[in-house]
């Protein structure tokens, strides 16, 4: 018999309740709430990435492409046609899902590093297009979300706390999607693909179809995060929204540092990395050029060296059945499939 409240679920519930109450205890106009919102948003992005990156071990370095498609679709729909970003958000998800299908057809035949490189090129191509197709995208100058006070129907709020709760809701939705996928039949098939793609194929799993579904869901959720990011930061340009180091790698990094393929991993990863980076910036960036990034990088390397399987590996795991828990195959999944 499975009980409804395992320690892990209780921890997750406590996290969400605490997060929901946070705005009542901190300065509502303050920077702390903004950083907390960024933590939640990056957790949602990493969780979206985790669906293909973690469950199926398809290490994508091009998720900024979907992210940027979401931001551009909703913002252009709003600027050119006056359509509310709430609707544009889902339009962006559809566009990104379509892009994921197009991208999957040629790239899913690639394995390991080759797949990572192909996805990386995808985001780069979008960046170049956004830069050069200036009549449509606004070009290298980027796009601003017009300042229009508080208009909830158009996803514009005065208070940071409103954005914060929207982002928290998004994170909850993405986590739920991940949980349903991971615990359903698709999740088992994805894990079969991760462990050994050929064996999965032989066992009757349509690996292409399974990967495609995961990839489309992941891309659509990432695009929604992109829209929310654009609304929250008010401005983006091609180089920042399709950024390899700033977004693609960061999504993967948060999931990997937190724990690849686990539900709590992206949340832990974001809770650890984003405040760390902000702290480094706040206290060191005025001291010497580049010092904050250097310190951040050193701590990151240390974290990965101390626990290569991610922070979640420290989590007590009574829920997993013994046979699964003792399975050694979780270690170093990135090396597989190469």
């Amino acid at each position, binding site marked *: 018999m499975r009980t409804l409240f395992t320690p892990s679920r209780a921890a997750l519930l406590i996290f969400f309740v605490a997060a929901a109450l946070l705005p009542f205890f901190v300065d509502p106009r303050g*920077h702390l709430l903004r950083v907390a919102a960024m933590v939640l948003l990056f957790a949602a992005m990493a969780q979206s990435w985790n669906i293909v990156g973690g469950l199926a071990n398809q290490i994508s370095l091009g998720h900024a492409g979907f992210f940027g498609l979401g931001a551009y679709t909703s913002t252009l729909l709003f600027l050119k046609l006056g359509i509310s970003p709430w609707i544009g958000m889902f339009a962006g998800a559809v566009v990104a899902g379509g892009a994921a299908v197009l991208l999957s057809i040629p790239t899913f035949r690639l394995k390991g590093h080759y797949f990572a490189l192909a996805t990386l090129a995808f985001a780069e191509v979008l960046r170049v297009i956004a830069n050069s197709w200036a009549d449509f995208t606004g*070009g290298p*100058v*980027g796009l601003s979300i017009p300042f229009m006070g508080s208009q909830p129907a158009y996803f514009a709020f005065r208070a940071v706390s409103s954005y914060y709760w929207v982002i928290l809701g998004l994170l909850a939705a993405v986590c739920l999607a991940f949980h349903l996928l991971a615990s359903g039949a698709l999740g088992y098939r994805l894990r079969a693909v991760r462990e050994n793609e050929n064996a999965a194929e032989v066992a009757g799993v349509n690996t292409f179809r399974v990967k495609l579904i995961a990839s489309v869901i992941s891309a659509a959720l990432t695009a929604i995060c992109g829209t929310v990011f654009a609304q929250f930061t008010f401005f*983006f*340009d091609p180089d920042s929204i399709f950024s390899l180091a700033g977004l693609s790698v960061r999504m993967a990094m948060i999931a990997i540092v937190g724990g690849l393929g686990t539900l709590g991993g992206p949340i832990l990863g974001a*809770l650890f990395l984003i405040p*760390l980076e902000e702290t480094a910036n706040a206290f060191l960036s005025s001291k010497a050029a580049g010092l904050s990034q250097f310190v951040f990088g050193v701590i990151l390397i240390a974290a990965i060296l101390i626990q290569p399987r991610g922070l979640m590996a*420290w989590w007590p795991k009574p829920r997993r059945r013994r046979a699964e828990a003792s399975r050694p195959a979780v270690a170093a999944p990135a090396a597989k499939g190469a």
Partner: protein
Amino acid sequence: MTSAPLDRRRAAGVMLAAGAVAFSLFAEPVRAAEDVVVGVIQPLSGPNAQFGIGAQRGTELAAEMINAAGGIKSLGGAKIKLVAADVPTPNTAASTTQRLISQNGVSAVVGAFVSSTTLAASEVTERAQIPLVTFAFADQITGRGYDYIFQVSPKGTVFGEAQFDYATAIAKKAGEKIDKVAILYEDTAYGTAQAKGLRDAAKKAGVEVVLDEAYPLGITDVSPLVNKLRASGAQIAFPVSYLNDSLLIIRALRQQQIDIPVIGGAAGYIIPDFKKGLGDYAEGVLSVAAASGDLIPELAAKYKEKYGSFITHEAIIHAAALDAVAQAMEKAKSSDPQKVRDALATLDTCTGLAKGVPGGCIKFDKTGLNTSAFPVFVQWRGEEPVTVYPPQAAKADPIWRGQTVK
């Protein structure tokens, strides 16, 4: 991976606790009692670091000079305290600017040399109702109808037009009629804005643009570009770029002994590293600029003494930007952001560091643009660029194809 799991757990606890402590530190506001706090955001790391560092030095020097001269007198001699933050990319600009505003209680923000970063930061300052005084000059900065943004230098397209008009005027004086020009620019906000100004000016003058090439920032091989330039038959080349590409382009031109005059588009063409990277090849290169050290010798001398190199235009303009904030506070008798903003909007000054801005004054129009400022031309002479055009600002005569133009 076989050591005791308890140690691991403890280590995890320590790491998360450290994160939590660091996080909670944000709740503490840092503010001294009688100082007035001004935020400075600049790219201090990343590809634009050298410009950001120069700009930050300019603001630091200006703060020192204002404080040494007695601070803000109408506020009982309050000293200006700068809080600096690194904004390497537009993604970090919103969050960093928010931090300066909510934690440091800044009266105003100065900076962000890079246009895209400034656009991102200005979206935050506008919503928080904090004045932002900038040198960044993409046309969109003052083109959005915002109330809390002030730009000390002319717009990007104005720089482009000046780059073209000044060059053809000098050529005409030297007896050369210009029919064909080439524009090479990097596809950034700054490059495209200025290229547009150049293109429009050429069209207006009826001059054919025989080469109009955008290239990506961080280009590593410019020889195809230079070959096209050679084949195009252009009489003047207008490259608009940051540092590394400017070095590559000039070096390739000189090595291939292409002697057409090169008029740089500011940024990389007028900083000490340009001379360091090119040596003798730098001599005689012209460039448009927002300011030049020889227009404000007292500031230039102090800068050189303190930092060991000549003062760059981003340092001069950011110094002037901080001085504008100081003068606005003096006038408003307050450090309240709203009052500082109102005082900035009605500021009309031709004293202090405003003298470093060509035109010598700072007066903002409705959009927040300093209307009295105009671009100048500088030309490399030995170790430093010298102002050579327009005549009302020039400190020396321009040299065109080896001939001094009177």
